[in-house]
């Protein structure tokens, strides 16, 4: 059923740097996004290591507290907006047109633009590290009035966020248009791979909430420079209002960071269990309900601001309700593996690691959802442990799983399997070494975003710092594997994996520059 057009004049493109600057090809742009995320991953990781070095021992050792706070703030902004979101957008660019049997993304020129905004946004953001008054240090949540005390960096921060938002919105519009309009005949919505489904829903989330963040930070900007009082109590505003606006964006945002990973895992588990995904339709509905619920739970980030009891109870139960569709997903993945003929290649290891460790993060999330308990956990390392469990062995592991899974398809070469497994086991060991002790120090009362701590937390912090350095160095293996695979290796077949199903595996490895110019036939 391969209906690939090869060696036509369409394959011509400028070479060298101009190829990448002017490209409107979904595969090129996907590659750009992924490399951008990789670079940012190491920059953000370096910031994390500054944090962990300072926290290696109690007392102030290496950096001054203001710079420490800049590091926590910038680490979060870089990792969220510079790593996880672009990496998933890159995967979407690469895979979605192929998966739905379309020739390219729906709006290729906008696609080019949405990528090339990103380097500018991040140059602006990272340039604040060298500014008077330092980089933003009030936390990535930008709560006023603290964030309004940022120095010269402030407008750079705000406009960088505007640019990142613009980029993600354009990316999301493109993805929705591609999925709705570019599907091959016969590719009905309920036949789409789950990665496409999760991205469709994620894209709608992005379109709905990124403008709200843009609005919120615009209000911060006018409060600081144009004398408005949106969040200024002296002028009749209310700083708590910002928290509502921010988390109205922020909670759907955390699902933007995780839903595409659900799609990735739903592609990998059936491949290596050699069984079709259990409960496809329930997976789609579960994803949609998670997306819907994400809009009505935002205030669980603000249980301690002095909400009325009715509000706290509502947000507590609404939050706990999310465990139901998430549980459906985990159940379906486990059931897919049940009695499957499983093999444990690197992508499968990462996917199983995802399920186990994401679920740990999910459980600590349930603990945080309990309002009375949250008063103890709020702003402690328990929260840090929770969201790192869902983001590092959650989103990041899913991205790595996706890279190993599709790298042979992208490059035509197999990656070194043993090295991949070493990368997985080192990452898993060190990620737990880093973040598991944080649960304990958090429950014992260690506050987050503080460069020093009380002596009784010393041992666990030292363990966490060792883990962080181990995890950081393990990622050099990842970088090495990717470069090595791009440069060569044993040739991959078209199907690559024995149990792989889906349109991407019907194309040659690597796929031609333009694929599916004639729509494939969908069974």
């Amino acid at each position, binding site marked *: 059923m391969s209906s690939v057009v090869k060696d036509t004049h369409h394959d011509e493109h400028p070479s060298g740097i101009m190829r990448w600057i002017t490209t409107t090809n979904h595969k090129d742009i996907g590659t750009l996004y992924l490399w951008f995320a990789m670079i940012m991953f190491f920059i953000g990781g370096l910031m994390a290591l500054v944090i962990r070095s300072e926290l290696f021992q109690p007392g102030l050792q290496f950096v001054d507290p203001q710079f420490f706070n800049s590091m926590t703030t910038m680490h979060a902004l870089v990792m969220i907006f510079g790593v996880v979101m672009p990496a998933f957008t890159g995967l979407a660019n690469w895979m979605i047109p192929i998966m739905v049997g379309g020739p390219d993304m*729906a709006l290729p020129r906008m696609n080019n633009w949405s990528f090339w905004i990103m380097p500018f946004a991040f140059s602006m953001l990272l340039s604040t590290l060298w500014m008077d008054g330092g980089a933003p240090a009030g936390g990535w949540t930008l709560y006023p009035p603290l964030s309004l005390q940022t120095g010269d960096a402030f407008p750079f921060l705000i406009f960088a966020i505007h640019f990142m938002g613009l980029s993600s919105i354009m990316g999301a519009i493109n993805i929705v*248009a591609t999925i709705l309009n570019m599907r091959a005949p016969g590719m009905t919505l309920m036949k789409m791979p789950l990665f496409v489904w999760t991205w469709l829903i994620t894209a709608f989330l992005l379109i709905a909430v*990124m*403008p709200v963040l843009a609005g919120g930070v615009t209000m911060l900007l006018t409060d600081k420079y144009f004398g408005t009082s949106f969040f200024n109590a002296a002028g009749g505003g209310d700083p708590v209002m910002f928290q509502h606006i921010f988390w109205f964006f922020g909670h759907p945002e955390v699902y933007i960071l995780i839903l595409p990973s659900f799609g990735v895992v739903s592609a990998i588990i059936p491949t290596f269990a050699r069984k079709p995904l259990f409960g496809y339709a329930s997976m789609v509905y579960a994803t949609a309900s998670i997306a819907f619920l994400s809009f009505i739970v935002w205030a669980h980030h603000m249980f301690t601001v002095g909400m009325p009891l009715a509000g706290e109870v509502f947000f507590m139960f609404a939050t706990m309700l999310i465990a139901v569709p998430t549980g459906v997903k985990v159940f379906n993945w486990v059931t897919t593996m049940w009695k499957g003929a499983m093999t444990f290649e690197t992508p499968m290891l990462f996917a199983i690691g995802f399920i186990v460790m994401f679920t740990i993060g999910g459980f600590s999330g349930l603990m945080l959802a309990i309002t009375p308990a949250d008063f103890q956990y709020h702003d402690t390392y328990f929260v840090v442990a929770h969201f790192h469990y869902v983001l590092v062995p959650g989103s990041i592991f899913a991205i790595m799983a996706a890279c190993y899974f599709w790298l042979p398809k992208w490059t035509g070469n197999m990656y070194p399997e043993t090295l991949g497994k070493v990368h997985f086991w080192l990452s898993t060991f060190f990620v737990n070494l880093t973040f598991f002790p944080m649960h304990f120090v958090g429950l014992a009362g260690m506050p987050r975003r503080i460069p020093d701590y009380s002596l009784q937390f010393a041992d666990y912090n030292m363990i966490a710092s060792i883990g962080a350095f181990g995890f950081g160095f393990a990622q050099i293996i990842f970088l090495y594997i990717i470069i090595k695979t791009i440069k060569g290796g044993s040739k991959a077949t078209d199907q690559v994996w024995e149990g792989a199903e889906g349109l991407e595996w019907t194309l040659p490895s690597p796929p031609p520059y333009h694929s599916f110019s004639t729509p494939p036939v969908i069974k």
Partner: protein
Amino acid sequence: MKEKKLNIKTAKKLIFICFSMFLFSFALIPLYNVICDVTGLNGNTSNLKEKVEAYKENVSSEKLNIQFISHQSNDNKLLFKPSEFEMIISPGKVYSTMYVATNKTNTTIVGQAVPSVSPNEASKYLKKIECFCFEEQTFKPGEVVKLPLYFAIDEKLPNRIKTVTLSYSFFEFVNVSKKN
């Protein structure tokens, strides 16, 4: 080319959603204030003068503890505190007290006090007949000013509330261009 038109049509719809959500973020501000005013959440009290006549009868026999506190900015330019920290009152009766402000600098300070009531539930029942918080205040260098407050607590205040705390935060009006 039919496909291209369709894509642009879809994109336009999605851009429209984006713009509406952007506007929605600004609409949240009045929406939030309306919700707080209606429900009395957030300790917002109305900044409107009440009529004295309403409080000549229906004095409750219950006693209520009312506490006064003040907040000021940490630059320590203005000493701002209540003249008495606590009063035992009967709901339904009008009382008076005052806050005292001392300008410790040799410049004029202009600003306004913003009230807040705790517990939130009580904010609906606090009636202010006269309050310095209704208007902006000017303090000349070194001046000591007495700021009067006439208030009553509505006798409909639920019985379970035994203590009401009234807090005033003084905010100086700062010229924006001077701030940076």
